């Protein structure tokens, strides 16, 4: 049998106990049997571990123990006092990454506050990440009002004069920019092609019209048919070439168009817009005249959706007495 003794950490006056207790004497009649029962013995009689005699009921680690830097023999080479600490000082905010970002940008702005700025509105247009995109990046439930603080800081940093913009500001701003800047997305300029054609696209309601306009003597072919064959109503025929008629160019151009979707009115007015856009490429100076004729602006109205409780979009059911 091997001797076993109670270490003093059990704190219950180990000097009162016998220095060693033979394994065979572990009976219930032993004076310290209630104490000893709490101690688990291995098969060979050595004490493994007992937690029952910890006197302190308070949470572990509140009053941190004194530092002892001498490593134990068994722990040679293992970092002796490895501690678990928060990865960020903003741990207790619940949104550490967001808070760190905010503090970083605030510090940066404080550092470069005195740099000259451009006039309001003259800064390069930047599309910042949307709230949803930012949330995906940080993986935290950031509120819109909180993210707005970051955006305000970014806008202020973006207003620093471009010739003096420091490199660290550039690199700090970059991750907040959207991958595709929609403000840089400008439509291509339409030109007259080698056959003298200009394509113009017009839309109205749910119709789409593609119009090829060439200089000519006033022929009109829509979906391969003459104007009369496509639009039985005189008003629609007038609408389709209204851009040419309003500017007195009916006999100067030929129209070849493909139009699809929607009804006759929509198709006719889609053609108006398409013809006007093509005509503007041939003669840009006609723009004021075309605008006065109402041919430049896209009419954005669509069919209004039906609502519950209504017969159509807005029509109420007839009133019935009971």
């Amino acid at each position, binding site marked *: 049998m091997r001797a076993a003794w109670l270490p003093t950490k059990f704190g219950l006056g180990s000097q009162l106990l016998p220095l060693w207790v033979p394994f065979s004497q572990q009976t219930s009649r032993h004076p310290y049997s209630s104490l000893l029962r709490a101690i688990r013995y291995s098969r060979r009689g050595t004490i493994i571990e007992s937690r029952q005699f910890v006197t302190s009921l*308070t*949470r572990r*680690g*509140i009053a*941190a*123990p*004194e*530092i002892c*830097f*001498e490593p134990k023999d068994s722990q040679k*080479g*293992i*970092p*002796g*006092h*490895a*501690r*678990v*600490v*928060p*990865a*960020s*000082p*903003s*741990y*207790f*905010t*619940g949104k*550490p990454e967001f*808070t760190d970002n905010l*503090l970083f940008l605030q510090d940066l702005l404080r550092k470069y506050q005195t*740099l*000259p700025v451009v006039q309001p509105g003259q800064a390069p247009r930047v599309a910042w990440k949307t709230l949803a995109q930012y949330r995906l990046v940080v*993986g*935290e439930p950031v509120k819109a009002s909180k993210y707005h603080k970051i955006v305000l800081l970014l806008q202020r940093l973006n207003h620093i*004069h*471009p*010739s*003096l913009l420091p490199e660290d500001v550039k690199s700090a701003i970059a991750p907040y920019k959207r991958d595709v800047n929609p403000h840089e997305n400008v439509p291509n300029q339409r030109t007259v092609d080698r056959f003298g054609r200009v394509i113009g696209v017009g839309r109205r309601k749910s119709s789409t019209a593609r119009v090829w306009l060439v200089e000519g003597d006033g022929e009109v072919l829509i979906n391969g048919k003459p104007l009369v064959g496509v639009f039985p109503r005189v008003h629609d025929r007038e609408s389709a070439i209204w851009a040419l008629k309003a500017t007195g160019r009916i006999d100067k151009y030929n129209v070849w168009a493909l139009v699809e979707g929607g009804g006759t009115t929509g198709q006719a007015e889609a053609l108006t817009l398409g013809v006007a856009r093509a005509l503007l490429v041939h003669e840009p100076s006609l723009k004021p005249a075309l605008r006065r004729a109402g041919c430049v602006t896209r009419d954005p109205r669509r069919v209004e959706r039906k609502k519950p409780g209504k017969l159509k979009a807005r029509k109420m059911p007839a009133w019935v007495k009971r």
Partner: protein
Amino acid sequence: MILRQLALRQGRRVFIPSASRPWIRFLNTEIERTNITVDNANEANLDYIGSQTDIPIAPIEETGESLVSSSYTMWLNQKKQTAHLGSTLDPHYKPHTLINRPPSPKDVTLELLMASQAHLGHATSLWKPQNQRYIFGIHQGIHIISLDITAAHLRRAAKIVEAVCERGGLVLFVGTREGQDRCVVNAAKLAGGCHLFERWIPGSITNGQQILGRCKMKVVDDLGNEIEGYEEQLIDRATLKPDLVVCMNPLENYVLLHECGLNAIPTIGIIDTDADPTWVTYPIPANDDSLRCVNLIAGVLGRAGEEGQKKRQAAALKAGFTGPSPNRKAGDAS
């Protein structure tokens, strides 16, 4: 003959870069003529600065962008040239110094506390009678806090912060009122602790897994260097709780202090005459409505934490701890 100045004024002397400066100018009978117009004003300025300094100034191009940067450089240059001019001010209050270079606990004096308005309490009708022992008297209807008690309690709190930091504890600095964010963040930076300057999320201690479950932790050694290789163990580890909470505005943070009480976490708080001193473990009777006072107290406690961290590092270095070897992973017993 027009003699505008017979003797040089003191301020002008410093403009003279060398002896080549034409003294004759002051004895001149004619007025100096310059042909500066709006168009060439900037060039004229540059010429003037170029004549005044040894620093060469790059010629400006006529584009707007470089004009801005060159004007800015010129302004910086001018500022540098004229920085030492003018009168010398007596020592005065500079708000940023309390943030950037806060005083340490041993610099705390009653004069400093009084200058920071730490003694001003609230109207007598708003008082909490538990604060009677901290109150010096009544002046113009408000309670005056006794500054010797404030200083004593502040030093005691500083010792606590220092000792907790020395033993590697986690100190949380909380100041959720408007304007308290910078001092709180800076104190946490000095003390190597955490900061909170927005709302305390109720349950961050008592229900930590739900609220702080996604916040990352790391394992550091005695010198504060991160040890790699514990990532898997950290995933299902319980969230951290602070070992000490320093609260700048206990009135608005009752929930936080209550949670600390439930978890036996000691708290330090600025207790104004209308606050309940039993909410915190170690009260500092002072004015919590003055940003200057709050900046001072947060700075002092941050410095104390910094001192504790230094002692901890020194003890580790003294014991020969130089940090784990870089290529060892957690779990290697060799």
